[in-house]
């Protein structure tokens, strides 16, 4: 029975599966549950076996629960908070009785690769299979309607040296790097620094700063030293989840995702205990020895008063001693290796102490199986003297720890199998990355501590570009000592060949040794293919518990060596990251015009056009259209791009960029512009106004500004032309005042002569409007007398207010994008990007007049000449519907079942009282009056409309109103 050690700490109330529980300050969710009598936290993925704390360090899948609606939370590393709602997952109807646990009994019907073999026939049943499999698959359920409070954030950090791992080696590396003057970020996945020293009582040796201190005291000392060093920023509870090119480290810290860049990285991720293989090795009550120590020292919960320790290495002897010091009695130490003396190994130093503490030492013993059902009650072992059952409620697994190599492997550094150590060790890291501490395989204090300190010093010196100070010599000396130590080590006992029953290799995916054997027998005999077939290492822990073990089991079963087998490819993330954390805060750029608030006040319905917010309409599109035709309308066109193109060569440059000419444009005049790419395709259009001899005002379509700006700069780069391009889009707010009474409104707000004679169609004038300096262009897109007025945006709202006030008695009405689209369709004006595409040439898009073939050169000239030579293959033309509905944009136009074109725009015109549009047609079909059949498209399949081709504008075809 688990018990709480000491009564201290504030009480914290929370619920488990709807029932009230009480924990203590300092508890994790898992430790609180354990202390309050709840051991089984989850059901396993495939066989739904009960699972409880295994690692207590966030490395396995066993303690995953749902916390406050968020699934797959590792409860052993989640601090308990008041009011938490904790629920089990992957169990139905309850964690105590899970119907799906029947699969555990009938597992012979679920062999490895079961899904691949079973659900392929009959093919007709696949939809059913898929539904069932999708229900059964996955762990945890997302509440699609709930909105957990996540507050994801992103941080971008920069440091001279990043140290990953807050154990003794990592802390010393950080301290030494900081002492060399470097700015250091120290990343540790625990709430406080110290690594394994936090749960160790034995004395630390090898560094003056820690000499003579117990492990726990040394950890506290390291914390003090780091906290006192201003050059170190410590990221606590933070996991380095990915290591990317250019020394970019992806770090998760709660809901925050940190991108950290550092020219020097010290990897001190240490080593970790792994489970050991025997039948039913997943029973609740079997946990890593380090987990027991963590529970006792960090959470003050003792899982059981006594334990049996199982090991294959001297490490287990040390852990047994530590358990006793932590108040957990050890009844027996089972070492799978033969007796040290008999095997010629040196006898572990702890032997006498353990014997004195009454620990029965069973060398050369092999674990057969765990005893008990829902909780372990003992361990059956096979000794040279025969089979024995050791009665215990806690089995502490203390197999030789493995270096944590995943991050290094992400950098492409393959781990190397060391026969002497009997484990994988890191390969040579790339420049800028150093490996230190327990990762190196030699776990003796002096080597771990000196290695960390030297790595930090060297990284600090390198990052700061300091002169060498003898550190390199000391590192060489250190490397020699590490090599010597490793050479003196004895490998752990080889893994026995797996026997019967379920011996779990992979706890996440419920993959047993037997299933791996089957997989190999079926031909999946490399670790990579076996991984994909059996899904071993593919669960939430991503191989943290089973990577090395899988490789060793595979090598044993395939009669090979891990040196040949190797490890599988490691990819980020090292630890699961929520999509929310990756996405970061919900930020998406919004651009607002200077009149935004005015539109809002008028009740505008908004439409997003790129990043811009534009008023689609103000409630009554038909009335807006009518106002433009009959009185005067006002539309905000600030979203049009605006460029100031100035300089002595500006006119000539614009000639080069466009197919028509601008160098001959008179000051005070505007000309239409269409821009082509090298293939002669229309990529933008707008207007060019010449405001001074060497100053042109160039407008672009909404959303195309950046492309045009870059296009112009691209062609200017390296040329000797004296031209400057300045983006003035943000500087100007712009409106178009359009309609037969527009001139009357203008006369009220400016002293300029706005008569037809003084300001004719295509005039460009600078002067005061509403008391503000303005650029006025006599152009329009909606087929009526129009004034496009550009003023500095700080005065945009003022201009709008003034025009509205002046125009109201004349029937002025604001109009939005929808009315504008109707009005321009009545004029058959194309919108580049909507009515044109990546194949549209000016000749075919009805803009052939814009191409001045006589010009010596311009971008797209040769292609335009080629199109002119062969003639248009398709033509953009108008159509009107004579019967049927308004077709969707993109609707197909067919003749005798064959496509002859497609609709690009179509709207109902309240002016014409019929639907009209623009469409691409093969050139032989684009004949005035030709009948067309248009398929209405998605949602109206099978329905068609009848239309006829109209090649001239529907409204004011000769443009008299526009020029008035």
């Amino acid at each position: 029975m688990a018990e709480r050690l000491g009564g201290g700490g504030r009480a914290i109330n929370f619920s488990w599966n709807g029932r009230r529980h009480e924990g203590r300050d300092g508890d994790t969710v898992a430790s609180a549950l354990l202390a309050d009598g709840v051991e089984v936290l989850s059901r396993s993925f495939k066989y739904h076996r009960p699972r409880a704390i295994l690692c207590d360090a966030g490395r396995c899948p066993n303690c995953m629960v749902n916390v406050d609606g968020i699934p797959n939370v590792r409860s052993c590393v989640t601090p308990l908070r008041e009011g938490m709602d904790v629920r089990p997952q992957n169990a139905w109807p309850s964690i105590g009785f899970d119907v799906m646990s029947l699969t555990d009994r009938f597992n012979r019907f679920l062999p490895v690769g079961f899904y691949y073999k079973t659900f392929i026939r009959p093919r007709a049943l696949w939809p059913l299979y898929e539904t069932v499999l999708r229900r059964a698959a996955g762990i945890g359920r997302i509440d699609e309607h709930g909105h957990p409070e996540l507050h994801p954030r992103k941080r971008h950090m920069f440091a001279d040296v990043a140290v990953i791992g807050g154990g003794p080696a990592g802390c010393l590396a950080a301290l030494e790097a900081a002492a060399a003057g470097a700015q250091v970020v120290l990343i540790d996945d625990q709430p406080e620094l110290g690594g394994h020293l936090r749960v160790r009582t034995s004395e630390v040796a090898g560094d003056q700063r820690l000499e003579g201190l117990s492990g726990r005291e040394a950890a506290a000392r390291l914390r003090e030293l780091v906290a006192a060093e201003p050059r170190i920023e410590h990221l606590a509870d933070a996991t380095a989840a990915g290591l990317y090119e250019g020394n970019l480290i992806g770090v998760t810290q709660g809901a925050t995702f940190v991108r950290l860049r550092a020219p020097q990285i010290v990897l001190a991720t240490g080593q970790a205990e792994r489970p050991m293989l025997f039948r039913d090795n997943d029973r609740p009550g079997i946990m890593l020895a380090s987990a027991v120590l963590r529970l006792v020292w960090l959470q003050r919960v003792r899982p059981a008063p006594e334990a049996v320790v199982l090991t294959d290495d001297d490490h287990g002897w040390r852990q047994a001693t530590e358990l006793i010091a932590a108040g957990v009695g050890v009844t027996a130490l089972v070492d799978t290796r033969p007796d040290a003396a008999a095997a010629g190994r040196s006898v572990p130093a702890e032997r006498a102490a353990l014997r004195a503490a009454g620990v029965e030492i069973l060398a050369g013993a092999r674990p057969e199986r765990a005893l008990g059902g829902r909780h372990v009650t003992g361990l059956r072992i096979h000794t040279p003297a025969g089979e024995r059952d050791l009665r215990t409620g806690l089995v502490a697994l203390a197999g030789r720890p493995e270096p944590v190599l995943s991050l290094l492997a992400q950098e492409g550094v393959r781990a190397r199998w060391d026969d002497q150590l009997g484990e994988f060790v890191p390969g040579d890291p790339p420049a800028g990355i150093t490996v230190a501490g327990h990762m190196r395989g030699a776990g003796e204090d002096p080597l771990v501590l000196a290695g960390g300190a030297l790595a930090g010093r060297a990284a600090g010196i390198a990052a700061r570009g300091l002169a060498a100070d003898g550190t390199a010599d000391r590192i060489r000396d250190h490397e020699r000592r590490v090599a010597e130590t490793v050479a003196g080590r004895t490998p752990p006992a080889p893994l026995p060949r797996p026997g019967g029953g379920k011996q779990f290799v992979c706890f996440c995916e419920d993959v047993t040794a037997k299933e791996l054997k089957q997989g190999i027998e079926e031909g999946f005999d490399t670790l990579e293919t076996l991984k994909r077939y059996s899904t071993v290492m593919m669960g939430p822990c991503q191989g943290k518990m089973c990577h090395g073990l899988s490789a060793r089991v595979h090598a044993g079963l395939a009669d090979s060596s891990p040196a040949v087998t190797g490890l599988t490819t490691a990819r980020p993330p090292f630890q699961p990251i929520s999509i929310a954390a990756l996405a970061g805060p919900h930020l998406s750029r919004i651009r607002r015009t200077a009149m935004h608030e005015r539109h809002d006040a008028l009740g505008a319905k908004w439409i997003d056009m790129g990043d811009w917010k534009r008023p689609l309409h103000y409630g009554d599109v038909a009335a807006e259209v009518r106002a433009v035709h009959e009185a005067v309308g006002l539309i905000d066109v600030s979203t049009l791009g605006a460029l100031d193109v100035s300089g002595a060569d500006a006119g000539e440059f614009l000639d080069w960029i466009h197919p028509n000419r601008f160098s001959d444009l008179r000051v005070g005049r505007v000309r239409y512009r269409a821009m082509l790419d090298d293939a002669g395709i229309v990529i933008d259009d707008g207007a060019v106004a010449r405001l001074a001899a060497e100053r042109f005002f160039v407008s672009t379509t909404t959303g195309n500004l950046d492309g045009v700006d870059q296009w112009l700069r691209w062609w200017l780069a390296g040329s000797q032309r004296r031209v400057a391009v300045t983006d003035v889009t943000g500087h100007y707010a712009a409106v178009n005042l359009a309609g037969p009474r527009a001139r009357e409104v203008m006369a009220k707000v400016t002293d300029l002569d706005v008569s037809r004679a003084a300001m004719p169609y295509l005039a460009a004038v600078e002067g005061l409007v509403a008391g503000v300096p303005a650029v006025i262009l006599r152009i329009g897109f909606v087929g009526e007398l129009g004034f496009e007025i550009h003023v500095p945006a700080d005065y945009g709202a003022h201009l709008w207010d003034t025009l509205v006030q002046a125009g109201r008695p004349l029937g002025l009405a604001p109009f939005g994008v929808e009315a504008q689209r109707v009005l321009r369709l009545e004029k058959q004006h194309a919108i580049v990007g909507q009515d044109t595409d990546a194949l549209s040439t000016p000749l075919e898009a009805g803009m052939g007049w814009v191409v001045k073939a006589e010009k010596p050169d311009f971008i797209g000239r040769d292609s335009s000449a080629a199109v002119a030579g062969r003639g248009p293959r398709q033509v953009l033309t108008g159509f009107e519907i004579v019967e049927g509905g308004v077709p969707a944009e993109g609707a197909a136009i067919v003749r005798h079942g064959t496509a002859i074109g497609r609709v690009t725009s179509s709207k109902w015109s309240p002016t014409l009282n019929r639907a009209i549009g623009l469409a691409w047609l093969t050139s032989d079909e684009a004949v005035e009056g030709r009948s067309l059949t248009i398929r209405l498209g998605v949602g109206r399949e099978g329905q068609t409309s009848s239309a006829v081709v109209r090649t001239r504008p529907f409204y004011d075809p000769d443009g008299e109103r526009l020029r008035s």
Partner: protein
Amino acid sequence: MSPEAVTPIRRSPLESIHARLGARWRSETERWPVSYGDEEDEARIVREGIALAEPGPYDKIAVRGRSTLVDLRWLGLAAGAGRLEPARTPGGINAWVPAEDEAILVRLAGVGAPRGRAATVATESLAEIAEKLRSAGPSVTDVSSGYTVFRLVGPRLHALLQELSPVDLSARAVPDLGIVAAVVVGCRMLLARRDHDGLPGFVLLVVRDEAAYVWDSIVELGATHGLRPVGAAAFRSPDLTEAHGAVGGVR
């Protein structure tokens, strides 16, 4: 309605945001906030948390051309590229010179040569400077409304900057008066480091039409760092002009 009867009102792109915060305006025709009511409290924010302000209004001209830096040197407005040349007198011109061939000159609106006195570089209007530059060669464009100016100051600024931008904006990477082009909350802009009273600070040249979005995003991300909007007066300068001089500071 006659055209003369109209008094132009110059508005901050954040007018409605400032109004909701209770802004006291610089003037009825210049809608930039001097404060939101409690100047003492706003000054405390500058010292203890992070202050975000939109001082203004400023006039600005963009200068482009190969000789930009040379010409600015000739006028005594800039010394080198990659830095902000602060105004020499209250209300003077701040020269942002990100590169040798481009600059933006910024000056508090309405400041020019006092009547009856000879104009100096410190008192010339931007229009006069623009004319001189044009005659020297570079292209000069009025971008007064193209950008607005944000000021971020406070002891807790560093941590917030790490959330706002993927670019290293630490004091090591951008020294005082250094200029950097960076993406901040997804928007491209120029930033100049300008510390204030020993507190870390930045001035941001924000594209006008993105200003409300940038402001809202900074306020949202900054809330947990103790950020609060303040008016220009919170900078405790002897006069408003100098407070605005915070854009480049007064040397």
